[in-house]
């Protein structure tokens, strides 16, 4: 391998990217767009959730609690119910997603034992929403409780919440603010990098086939590995730039707290980029049309990353078979790492497993890509 030729290809590619509006849009504008879209739009935070209340007590205390619910931005009380039958009907008819039921002895218990319980009925057909709603209900009740403790409400005791469904303990542990954005945004960064990186590189070889420049290039003594390296260098630089942009955006715009070391972040991000670019190059070497290559690139990055990387939907809640499939999704390792770095502040030593998995992945992809690109016309 000759550095001179690698540099020539890298330089050429960089000039072409600079002059190609489409590449520039994908490289610079798409990460921004997606951070905004996924950060705000596809946030798992549920606001103004239609809520019904069934206040069986009708006391000052129960009304104070319901006021807390109403004033929270998460819930919007749509109607007041008179019995459980109505509650079921309301949920079935989709008039509301959650029912808050306050028992007859709410105040009684509160004053007797200093604790009481509230019942939350949620429509679990949307498991995710139900979980999050219950989480919010927790926080509202917590708030009520602390206000009560401070005497803000003018009476004593503290209620506890009786919840149904999945245990929320773990999530709440690392995401105290219960802001799902903190949970999702690190994954969004991985998603964007996978998509942008694979999309850009998937075009690089197929474009040369389509434009007829490849025939001339393969008639020179340049080595396939030189072509591959030369082409990946500028995309690596763009990918790192995008990564920095996304991470800075996550921390300073969405205020996702970052707890890990910068070194670990840089190293794992670079590793992930190598995998992503390698996959893009592999696609490109296999498919000679730009349209085909970009479609495949979107298919192998966007779908698996958004569904199976664990960026929004926890892997451990998936069926065992699907969990097995996620090991093939290269983004899952990076998502795991990013979440650990952001939310737990893990060190590199804690992340050896996903890091090694990515190294292995990178090696396999590089090997396949090197073999897939042939300097031959047929």
């Amino acid at each position, binding site marked *: 391998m000759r550095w001179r030729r690698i*540099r020539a290809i890298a330089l050429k590619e960089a*000039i*072409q990217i600079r002059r190609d509006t489409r590449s520039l849009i994908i490289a610079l504008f798409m990460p921004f767009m997606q951070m905004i879209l996924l950060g705000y739009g596809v946030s798992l935070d549920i606001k103004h959730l239609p809520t019904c209340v069934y206040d069986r007590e009708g006391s000052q205390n129960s009304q104070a609690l319901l006021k807390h619910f109403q004033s929270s931005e998460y819930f919007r009380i749509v109607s007041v119910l008179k019995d459980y039958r109505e509650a079921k009907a309301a949920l079935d008819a989709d008039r509301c997603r959650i029912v808050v039921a306050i028992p007859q002895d709410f105040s009684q218990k509160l004053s007797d034992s200093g604790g009481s319980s509230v019942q939350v009925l949620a429509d679990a057909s949307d498991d995710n929403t139900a979980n999050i709603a219950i989480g919010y209900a927790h926080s509202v009740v917590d708030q009520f409780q602390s206000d009560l403790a401070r005497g803000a409400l003018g009476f004593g005791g503290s209620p506890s919440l009786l919840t149904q469904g999945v245990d929320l303990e773990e999530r709440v542990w690392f995401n105290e603010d219960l802001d799902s954005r903190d949970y999702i945004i690190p994954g969004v960064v991985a998603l964007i990098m996978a998509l942008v990186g694979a999309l850009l590189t998937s075009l690089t070889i197929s474009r040369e086939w389509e*434009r*007829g420049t490849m*025939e001339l*290039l393969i008639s*020179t003594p340049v080595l396939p590995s030189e072509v591959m390296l030369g082409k990946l260098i500028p995309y690596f630089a763009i990918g790192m730039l995008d990564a920095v942009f996304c991470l800075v955006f996550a921390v300073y715009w969405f205020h996702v707290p970052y707890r890990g070391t910068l070194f670990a972040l840089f190293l794992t991000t670079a590793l992930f980029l190598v995998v992503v670019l390698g996959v893009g190059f592999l696609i490109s070497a296999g498919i000679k049309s730009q349209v085909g290559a970009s479609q495949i690139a979107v298919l192998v990055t966007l779908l698996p990353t958004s569904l199976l990387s664990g960026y929004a939907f926890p892997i451990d809640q998936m069926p065992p078979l699907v969990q097995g499939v996620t090991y093939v999704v290269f983004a899952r390792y990076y998502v795991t790492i990013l979440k650990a770095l952001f939310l737990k502040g893990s060190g590199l030593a804690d992340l050896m497993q996903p890091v090694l998995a990515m190294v292995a992945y990178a090696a396999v992809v590089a090997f396949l890509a090197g073999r897939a690109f042939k300097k031959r016309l047929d």
Partner: protein
Amino acid sequence: MSPALPPRIEARKLVKRFPGVFAVNEMSFSVGEGEIFGLVGPDGAGKTTVIRLLAGVMPPDSGSATIDGVDVVADPERAKQFLSYMPQRFGLYEDLTVDENIRFYADIFEVAPSIRDQRIGPLLSSFGMAPFQRRLAGQLSGGMKQKLGLICALIHTPRVLLLDEPTTGVDPVSRRDFWKILYSLREQGVTILISTAYLEEAERCTRLALVHQGVMAYCDTPARLRAMMPGKLLNVVSSQARDVQKAIASLPGISGALLMGDRVHVAVDDDGRRIPEIVRVLEEAHIPFEPPVPAEPTMEDLFLALLRERRTSP
């Protein structure tokens, strides 16, 4: 060509099959230093394929080829150091400037920067491309693109140039300039193999191979090929050329009567015998005409006559 010098290009029984057809069927030839070797034939005859085999961008099914003594089939990457290939389709980067393209190929061929800088200036100016150094390649005219292709091909001073229809669709003025450059390269000892779909252009080659259906039918200097032309050709100009054609097409000894605008292009076996017969028939039919005059065979005439002959005597 001096037989003492080893051939710069040598093809031995090259075969390339595509589903259903022999694109190249046992082609053998050798080209020496200082030759401009032309491959002529219609599209689909196998010209492009044989050039691709020689350029090492497509492996043959069987047979072998050497470029400057290096086996292209066994060691294509080494052979590529001595050759330059210009594909039929413009192969340079249209979104790079003239200068950027040249530098890119200089780097790919590892031309030392000091030598590269020495070469670029004279190449650009001798090709008349100096004013366009900073223009994007995509914004050049067809003729200028081909010149840029040639500059990039020459930056590493190859010994063999493989040109696949470099002048197709290029305006005649640029085509002439292009051929002047080829002749000056020949002076410098570059061996050139060129394919062309323009039969009249083929006459500019020092040696010519007629390619037909994957087979090299004839291979010789244009003058000697011309001498192989059987029979004679006549032109009969007439204001009623169509009637002339009808009247004489089926006369004995006439193998072809082609209507071309205001004249009929006639192929006869013996002009001394047939001219009086033609004159007699036309006079009897009261068709106005100018006396038949002998015509130089065009490359197309030659090509057709040779192929016809080949078919009748296998």
